[in-house]
């Protein structure tokens, strides 16, 4: 067993086999990982919002899908991953409260997930698995030895994607 690297909210980091990279209690945020199955190098970003260009105060790049995913890509490649072999997985984007209409609180999770799909399409990186939406929180782990992505929620069996 390797070390466990923790990624906070609006944070990103890289990880190499046999280590595990994790983020705890994703709600409407997204935990997105890149992984190169040959060099077993991966990384995770935990972003909060879909678009940095819509926000005046956008200093923290890990807070947004566009800038966060781009930065994560740079970092995993610098750490020895091959861009061609990279695959992506993601989880989160839940709707924690059944809010109807009015503000955009109700659909921010779905917009966060959609932002990743668009970003990855532009980057030509395959999104091979995702577990997004619904109404519950998720703790996620990327095991760099196997590339397995574990999802743990309250009162639900562990899911591996």
């Amino acid at each position, binding site marked *: 067993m390797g070390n466990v690297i923790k990624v906070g909210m609006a944070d990103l980091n890289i990880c190499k086999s046999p280590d595990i990279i994790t983020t705890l209690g994703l709600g409407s945020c997204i935990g997105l990982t890149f992984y190169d199955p040959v060099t077993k190098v991966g990384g995770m970003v935990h972003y*909060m919002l879909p678009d940095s260009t819509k*926000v005046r105060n956008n200093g923290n790049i890990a807070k947004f899908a566009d800038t966060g995913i781009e930065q994560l890509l740079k970092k995993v490649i610098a750490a020895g991953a091959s861009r061609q072999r990279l695959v992506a997985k993601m989880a989160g984007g839940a709707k924690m*409260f059944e809010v109807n209409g009015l503000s955009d609180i109700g659909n921010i999770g779905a917009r966060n997930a959609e932002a990743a799909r668009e970003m990855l399409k532009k980057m030509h990186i395959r999104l091979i698995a995702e577990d997004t939406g619904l109404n519950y929180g998720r703790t996620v782990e990327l095991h760099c030895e196997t590339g397995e992505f574990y999802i743990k929620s309250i009162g639900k069996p562990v899911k591996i994607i």
Partner: protein
Amino acid sequence: MDNLTLEDVNSKYLDVLKELGNIGAGNATTAIANMLGMKIDMNVPNIRLIEVSDLGQAIGAEEEVVIGIFLEVQQDVEGSMMFMLDIPSARYLVNKLMMTDVSPEVPFGEMELSALKEIGNIIAGSYLSAMSSLTNLVIVPSIPYIAVDMAASILSVPAIEFGRFGDNALLIQTEICADVAINGYFILMPEQDSYVKILSSLGISI
């Protein structure tokens, strides 16, 4: 200045917001006491400005299961507010209200969740009405929404709300004491221009 964010809120304004929080929490405590028909004391609330990225662990471990009650507010002040309770406190209040004696380990049933929603509604409503009468602003809350989940997951909602405008969030922690200590947290999430409205309604020029 229409785009006042918490970054621009200097210590003077922060004191005003703290005082509002204090009065709101006091009013909410009275409401709980009336609802349960018992005497309840409140400690001075601990009001903190914290970085959005630290909000997930601001009230304890990220994965600790807590109750979140969420309301949207409209009219003069737009935005939302959330009230959070830990499980033992929530169980205590439900037991008192429903005159039961269920252990905190037992998950909440449908009836109990709706009792909790009502508790949240009364607490949040009395908090907002204190604010409303101080500022003379009309503040209308929506129906309450409830979630029982990991603290970090629930706190992602206010973190995202505050994150849209800046890097700080205002967290109000109150401890009220009946025969046990009840820990509750308020998070107010006004839209940007609502800070200006709240402060100027109190005669503070910005």
